[in-house]
Every structure is written in C-alpha cells, then in structure tokens.
C-alpha cells in the first residue's frame, strides 16, 4: 500500500500546454500491477528537471515531493525534444489527460522503480493531493471513477463468522490439561564427575525393584491340534562346520621334498622276507597272463581306421609317371653344350640355374681352345615364365662344373671352374629383376617362338650378362677341375687346423671344394688378416680397373684368394691319391624344405639393411675355443669308384711338424665307375646314397663294414642320382640312355620300382624341388644341354603314413644283417681253419686245388679262378646277379 502523503500542496507554476495529438503506439507502463493504475513511473533527467523546475532537492523535496505541471508545458517539451524527451513514454497519457495540470511526484524511495512518477488521472491527482479521510469520500470517488480505473481500497475487517473451524482447531490444539510440576534436584557439586561405581543387585531381592506382567495360560485361546501333516526325507548326513580363520595376504610358499626310499640293507632284508616271495609268486602269474595277452594281440586297434591310409588324394592315385612340365634349352650358343650342374633358386619360385659347359673331350678342348676363349662360359637362370630367354646369365672365366647358391643369401653364388678356380658372383643388384618374374604355369603369350634372326637383344627380356666378382688364386688353389663345391653351414666354421669353431657371424662364410688334383680345400670368403704387409706387387694388381657394374663384395678375394686348409687324400705310401669327385658333409641336409625357406626369408629380411656379405669381417676362429665333439668326418666319392670316410682335421706330423691330413677312417670300393653322387638323405642324417658306375649303394654313417644296400649292376650305367625330398624311401637315378629309374625301398630293393624315359641322351643331373605341398618338380639335365622340368605325381611326392618308420626299420634291419654277416664271417673263418687243418693233414697225399672260395652271406659258394680280381668277378656274374650286401674273399 502506498503511503499517502498528507501534505498540503502548494501550487507551483502552472503553464498550460496544448494537447498533442497522440501518435504513439507504445503503451506506457503503469503501476496497475501494484494496485495503482494511474501512476506512471518516469525518469526525469537533470535537463528535464531544469526545464520543469522540478529539480531534486531544490524544487521537489521530501516535504513537497510533487509538482503540478502544465500539460502544455509537457507538450512543448515533447515537441522540442521529441523522442529524447522524458515524457515520451507517457505521451499518450498526457494527451488523454482531461485536466490541465498533471501531478508529477518525486519518488524518492524508488517505490515504483524510477525517480519520478506521473499521476495520470485527475482523480489520482486529487486523491494524492487530498487524501480521503472518510470512506464516503472514497465512495464518492468511486462513483466518479470511470470503470476502467480501479482504486485500491483497504480490506475492511468484518466480524468473524464461525463456520465450525474453531472446533477443529480446538481439537487439534494441544493444551496443557494439568499443571506442570516442577522439580528441583540438587546435588553437591563435589559429587559431579566423580568416578562411578556400578554394582549388581538382584532385582528380586529388592522390593519393588521391578514390575512384571506374567503370562498365564488363557483357556480361551488353547486349541488342541488333532491332525498333523508331516513329510519326511532321507538325506545323507550333512554336517555344516565353519571355522574362523585368520586371513592373511597370499604368500608364495615352496616346499621341497624327496621321496622316501629304502636303503640297500632294508631292501635286501625285504627281498628275503617270505611275504614278498609269496606275493611275487602270486602276482607274477596274473601279470604274465596280461603280458602275453598284449603280445598276442592289440585289442584296442581300430581296424577300420587302419585300413584307410590317406585322407584324400589329389589327382589320379594310380598315376605314377613324372609329367612333363617344361623344358629349357639355350638356343643362342653356337657350340654344343652340356649341362653340368643344376640348382633351383632357394627362395624364388620358378627360377632355376644351370651351368653349361662345352661337350668336348680333353683333346678337343685343347684343340679348340682358341675358339673356346671367345665364348663366355655361362650359368643361365631360367624362369618358368619364359622358356626361350634366360633371365640372367652369369659369366665365368671358364666352364663351370659345379656351383651352389649360398644358403644364407641367395644372391651369392659360388662355382667351381674347370681350371681349378672358384668363381663368386653377387647378383644383389639384379635381385629385383628376377624376383618380379611371375612364374606362370606354362607358356606366356608373349614368348612366341621366333626365328633366331628376329630375336632382338634390346627387347624387354634382354638377358643380362653379369660378370663374376671374384675368382680364387690360380697358384694356390686347385690345379685341376673342381668337381664339387659346398657351402659350409652357417653354424660352424673351421680354422687352418681343421678344428671347428662356432660361427658367430650367422652367415655361410666358408666353402669346401674337392677337385681332381686329389685335394679337398676349405675356403673362407671373409678377408683374412694379413700376417705380412703387402709389397708393391699388390699395388700393381690394384691398378687393374674393375668394371663399374661389378659389385665389390668380394674384391678382397679377387685373384688372391687362398684356401684355408688343404686336405690331401693320400693312399699312403703309394703316390697315387684318391681323386675325389663328390663329397658329403654332415650338415649337408639343408637341401630345401619349406620350413628352411621361411627361415631363410626371415633372415634375408633382417639383413636387408645391412647385407652381411657386403660387410664381411674376418673370422673369429682365433679367438674362440674349438668345439670338441663336432663330427669332422665326411664322405668322399672318388673317380675309381671308392667311397671314403675321412676326417678333415689336420694333425701335426710328429717328425716334420707340418700339418698333415689324417688317413681315411674307412674306404670301400663298391662302384665300378666314378662316383658322381654322394648324398645324405633329407630324412636321416646318417644315411648316404652313393651312385656310381652301374650300381647304387646306401650307407649308414658309423657302420664301417659296408653299405647297407648295394644294388646289383644295372643294364645301363647310372649317371646321376638324388633322394626324393618328401618320401624317405624313394630316390631317383638317371641313366646314360635318358631313362630315369625311380627306386622305392619299401616296394622293391633289388630293382627300381619304375623307369621312365625322359630324353634321348645321358642324364647328367637330377634335382628335385618342393614348391608347395601339392607341387613338386624335378629338374633333369641331359647331355645335350636341355633342362627338363617334370612334375612329380602325387604318389611319388606324398609319403605314406608310416613310411619314415618303415624305412627306418628297414635300415636297422640291414644294419643287423651286416652285423650278422660279420659274425658269420668269424664262424666261417673258424670253420675254414678247421677245414684247413684237415686239409693240411691230407695235403701230403693229395694236391690241393688252387681254388679260392668265395663265400657270401647267404651261404652260396661261387668258385672263381684265383687270379681274377673281385671287380671282374662282379662283371662276370653280371648276367645272374644276387644282391649281395656284403662280399668278402677268404684266401686260403
């Protein structure tokens, strides 16, 4: 409620103003919400206050907060200042104002929000100026008031009419019915805070200490139950037990124990005790029955399952022929060439390398040596995708007779030359060229057969001639043709003495070669630490320009490469030495397996950043301790058909102090011609296949008495051989008439299981290779320079379920056979001696026939004239051959 100012007004200046036409749309804000619709709050700036002389604290004060302003003055102001005028918001009201003077009140307390307010009606003005004291005046006002103006009236209190609510209130109210009792309790102050003593007392002893309300049976509430439903179930006795344990954090605890055992004396006493004896007698009966049952038959065999051998086969199961896949011939070479060695690329599918040599005898070579010098001797890289153009051609100073890819880096190739040099190639630079060859199955469309004169060398498939990057020293190396070359495994290395050390470099860095000059040399491709400083001779050599496209991997070796050790295969006192043709080392079974391929790939990936072959460091053989129990023995096949088992470790001759090679451990003459294949089985490390002359022999390392299997003489000479890579009992032999004999040890051991014609001429090399579990190829090289690739059928590539065990068993049986023969030999000797004794007795009277008895293990006695040698005897009995695995001659 607005307080009413009860001050009398004193009229101030009045200046009538003309009425302005109301053209405002804006509705002025009034205080209707507060119950005073006629009050319009206004803000009057100082300027306005000056104009209307209603300045605060000057014209309008607390005593007289209002001012009567003429309407015309307002209108003039509105005209003068238009929107800027403070009266602009209330323009409408001013226009509608009936009277002449408007009341402007100073709102000191900002009751209506602004510092001034205008009373917009006459009545309001009047009521403000003359506040009504009598309600009748208000009623009069009310009558005068137009209906749209509401005048606030105070509520008038009426007498209260009871509607019954006071009763509720009375009920609800809380009244004190009784007078409050007050107690005053006092206690001595010293007793406050004193220690409290509690004591017990019996409640019943003290009178009135407790009140109880005892229960009593009330007859009204007792009911006698006459029937009861009861169910029963039997359960095992259950016991619930719980215990409180002290929880501690988990701890690791260990216990160590040893079993209780009896001492020896206790065992002895027990043994003699009667109960044990009785027990054993009784128990052994049932045990022996059970043992015999097992021996008779295996009752748990699933016969049905054992009937089936293989899960599924690809292709025709009966197809056992090698299928022609592709063949490669070099059409560019002018002279006739033969293939001397074949090697599949270890990692790239479909890439195969062959070394070709002119097929001339020694005299012809000498005769045509001038012409031969002009033609490069090559190693050709063939790919399945292009049968006409070789992918790469590696040049060498002379014909290569054997070569090998380095197992740790397939871009390094080592080859043995006809002149006794070792040639090294590094094709890292061209590796990407050959890697991106897509080996399609069969001919590609582009490789159509064109006549030779149309073949352009600048075509897309131009063959790259890659020069060798190192050759060994001519003076220090071999003097004659190198017949076999192998990389030593990357796990060990040897030194000058032949002792074996651990190979820390992780790569294959040593080679072993054998040559027709009766030596076996070990070579190291790492730079040797020079003991003496080089003289000026070296400088002269250095001035030789190296062609720019030759990698400098083996520059340190070029022309100065000396072998590490030379092992001379001497026969002893005679000057004739063994002339090795092939060797087989212990670690040579890294032929190829897909597992090894992956290892090799991972190795090459690692070495991509830093190819170890480009940063060869000298060996650490001097620093490391030799490995003692390494088997340094190896097999050598010779030109005369002997198989020698010898040691490469050198020993010091006690007299001269020089290093000498040891004598061979054992040697056997088994073959009638040059041994051209000595190979370890990929499945058994100690089974070796030797092929030479007209027969085949299988040996076991460690069995010195002879070969496990020696085949009888074949009608045609055997010229090459290889184990199968997936079947332990299968090996391939190539003949001189172009046939390939496939032997299966589980099928027949006296003759080949199969024979197939491949070409018309002598087969010079056989090399099978696995590409996948379904695809296996065999590369067969012939004397006329053609390389045939054949696909091995399913039956020949997939081993049967127990093949490995069966072949193992077969070999063990053969070993036992040999032992048996040895024993029989001794028995025979004894018998011989006895016979001789008897003969000697009769010698006096009867002339002894000069026959020698030839006894074999089967007890056949074949009598042969004494003067002939054993080899000839073999030839004589060629027509009817018995597969002797061990022959011996007993001389009388």
């Amino acid at each position, binding site marked *: 409620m607005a307080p009413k100012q009860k001050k009398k007004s004193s009229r101030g200046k009045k200046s009538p103003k003309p009425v302005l036409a109301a053209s405002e749309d804006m509705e002025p804000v009034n205080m209707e919400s507060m119950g005073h619709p006629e009050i319009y709050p206004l803000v009057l700036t100082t300027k306005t206050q000056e104009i209307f002389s209603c300045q605060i604290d000057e014209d309008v004060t607390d005593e007289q907060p209002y001012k009567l302003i003429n309407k015309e003055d307002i209108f003039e102001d509105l005209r003068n200042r238009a929107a800027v005028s403070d009266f602009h918001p209330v323009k409408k009201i001013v226009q509608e104002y009936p009277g002449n003077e408007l009341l402007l009140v100073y709102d000191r307390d900002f009751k209506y929000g602004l510092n001034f307010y205008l009373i917009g009606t006459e009545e309001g003005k009047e009521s403000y100026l003359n506040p009504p004291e009598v309600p009748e005046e208000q009623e009069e006002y009310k009558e005068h008031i137009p209906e749209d103006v509401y005048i606030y009236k105070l509520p008038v209190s009426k007498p209260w009419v009871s509607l019954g609510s006071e009763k509720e209130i009375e009920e609800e109210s809380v009244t004190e019915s009784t007078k409050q009792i007050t107690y005053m309790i006092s206690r001595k102050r010293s007793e406050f805070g004193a220690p409290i003593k509690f004591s017990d007392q019996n409640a019943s002893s003290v009178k009135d200490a407790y009140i109880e309300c005892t229960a009593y049976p009330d007859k009204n509430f007792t009911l006698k139950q006459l029937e009861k439903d009861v169910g029963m179930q039997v359960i095992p006795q259950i016991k619930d037990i719980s215990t409180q344990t002290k929880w501690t954090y988990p701890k690791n605890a260990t216990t160590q124990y040893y*079993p*209780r*055992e*009896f001492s020896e004396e206790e*065992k*002895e006493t*027990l*043994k*003699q*005790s*009667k*109960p*044990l*004896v009785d*027990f*054993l*007698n*009784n*128990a*052994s009966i*049932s*045990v*022996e029955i*059970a*043992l*015999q049952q*097992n*021996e008779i038959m*295996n009752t*748990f*065999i699933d016969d049905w399952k054992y009937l089936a051998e293989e899960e599924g086969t690809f292709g025709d199961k009966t197809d056992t022929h090698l299928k022609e896949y592709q063949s490669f011939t070099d059409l560019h070479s002018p002279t006739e060439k033969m293939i001397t060695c074949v090697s599949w690329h270890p990692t790239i599918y479909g890439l195969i390398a062959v070394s070709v040599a002119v097929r001339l005898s020694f005299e012809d070579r000498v005769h045509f040596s001038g012409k031969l010098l002009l033609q490069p001797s090559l190693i050709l890289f063939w790919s399945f995708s292009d049968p006409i153009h070789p992918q790469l051609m590696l040049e060498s100073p002379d014909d290569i007779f054997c070569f090998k890819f380095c197992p740790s880096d397939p871009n390094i190739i080592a080859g043995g030359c006809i002149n006794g040099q070792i040639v090294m190639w590094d094709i890292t630079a061209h590796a990407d060229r050959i890697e991106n060859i897509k080996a399609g199955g069969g001919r590609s469309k582009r490789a159509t057969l064109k006549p030779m004169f149309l073949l352009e060398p600048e075509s897309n498939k131009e063959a790259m001639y890659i020069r060798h990057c190192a050759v060994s020293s001519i003076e220090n190396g071999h003097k004659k043709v190198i017949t076999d070359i192998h990389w030593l495994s990357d796990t060990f290395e040897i030194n000058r003495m032949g002792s074996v050390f651990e190979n820390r470099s992780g790569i294959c860095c040593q080679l072993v070669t054998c040559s027709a000059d009766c030596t076996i040399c070990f070579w190291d491709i790492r730079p040797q630490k020079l003991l003496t400083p080089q003289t000026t001779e070296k400088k002269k050599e250095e001035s030789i320009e190296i062609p720019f496209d030759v990698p400098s991997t083996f520059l340190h070796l070029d022309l100065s490469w000396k072998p590490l050790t030379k092992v001379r295969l001497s026969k002893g006192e005679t000057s004739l030495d063994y002339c090795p043709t092939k060797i087989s080392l212990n670690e040579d079974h890294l032929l190829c397996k897909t597992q090894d391929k992956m290892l090799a790939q991972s190795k090459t990936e690692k070495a991509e950043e830093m190819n170890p072959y480009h940063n060869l460091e000298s060996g650490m053989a001097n620093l490391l301790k030799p490995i003692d129990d390494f088997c340094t023995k190896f097999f050598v096949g010779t030109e005369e058909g002997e198989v020698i088992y010898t040691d490469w470790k050198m020993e010091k001759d006690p007299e001269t102090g020089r290093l000498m090679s040891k004598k061979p451990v054992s040697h056997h003459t088994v073959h009638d011609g040059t041994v051209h294949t000595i190979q370890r089985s990929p499945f058994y490390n100690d089974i070796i296949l030797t092929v030479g002359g007209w027969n085949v022999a299988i040996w076991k390392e460690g069995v010195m008495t002879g070969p496990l299997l020696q085949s009888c003489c074949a009608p045609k000479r055997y010229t090459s051989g290889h184990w199968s890579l997936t079947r332990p009992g299968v090996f391939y032999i190539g003949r001189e008439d172009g046939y390939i004999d496939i032997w299966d040890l589980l099928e027949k051991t006296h003759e080949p299981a199969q024979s197939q014609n491949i070409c018309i001429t002598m087969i010079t090399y056989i090399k099978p290779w696995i590409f996948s579990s379904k695809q296996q190829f065999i590369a067969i090289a012939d004397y006329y320079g053609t390389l045939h690739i054949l696909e091995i059928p399913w039956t020949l590539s997939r081993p049967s379920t127990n093949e490995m065990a069966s072949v193992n068993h077969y070999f063990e049986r053969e070993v036992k056979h040999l032992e048996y023969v040895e024993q029989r030999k001794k028995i025979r000797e004894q018998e011989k001696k006895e016979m001789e004794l008897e003969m000697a007795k009769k010698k006096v009277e009867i002339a002894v026939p000069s026959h020698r008895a030839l006894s074999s293990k089967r007890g056949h006695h074949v009598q042969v004239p004494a003067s002939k040698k054993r080899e000839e005897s073999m030839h004589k009995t060629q027509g009817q051959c018995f597969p002797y695995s061990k022959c011996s001659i007993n001389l009388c």
Partner: protein
Amino acid sequence: MNEWTNTGREPDPLPSSLAGPTAPGLGEPQAEVEETLKRIQSHKGVIGTMVVNAEGIPIRTTLDNSTTVQYAGLLHHLTMKAKSTVRDIDPQNDLTFLRIRSKKHEIMVAPDKEYLLIVIQNPCE
C-alpha cells in the same frame, strides 16, 4: 670244518631227496625274487618292472631312480583309490589287477595287502 681230499674220482651224485628245488639257480628266496622279476622283464615289450611296498616306497626296480619314484608314488595312490572304489560298490569285492592302457604303453599293477608289482609294457611295435 670239513677237509677236502682229492679222492681222484668224481663226487657221488646227490640223492634225489636232497636235491634242491628244480628252479634254475639257487633255492633261496632272494634268488627266486630275482628270477621271477627277470622272467617278467624278459617278456616282449616290457619297459620296466618294479616292486613297491604298501606305502609306495620302491623295493626293487629296473628303471632309474627318479622314474621309479614317480611311478611308485602315483600308482600307489591310484591303486588305493581303485581299491576303495571297488570296495565301496561292493564291500565283499576286492581289486585283483589294474591295467592302464595309454597311447604309448600299458601299465599293469598287481596289488596285494603289503606290496605292489608294477610292470610297464609297450604292447605294439
């Protein structure tokens, strides 16, 4: 002590009543034990034989110590379990022989009140 004199002739054969048991070797129980065990061991495919007492402590064995101890301990428990199983099902029954066939070989256990005879055989080649 008897004195031996060389009478120059061969000794008289013993009367048959004094002849020992016809088992080869001696008649002492110790040798009999050995002989039985050797007989069992010589069967085809037998890998090992052992005699174990009631607590699982080996008495005689043909295998090495650690294997023996392992077999003895484990099989002893298993035999006890098997025995109690059989007797639980039928209290008047008892375990006479236990054969465990595995992929590689067969283990035979002959239990007794005080001892166990364990034989390991490889039944197939």
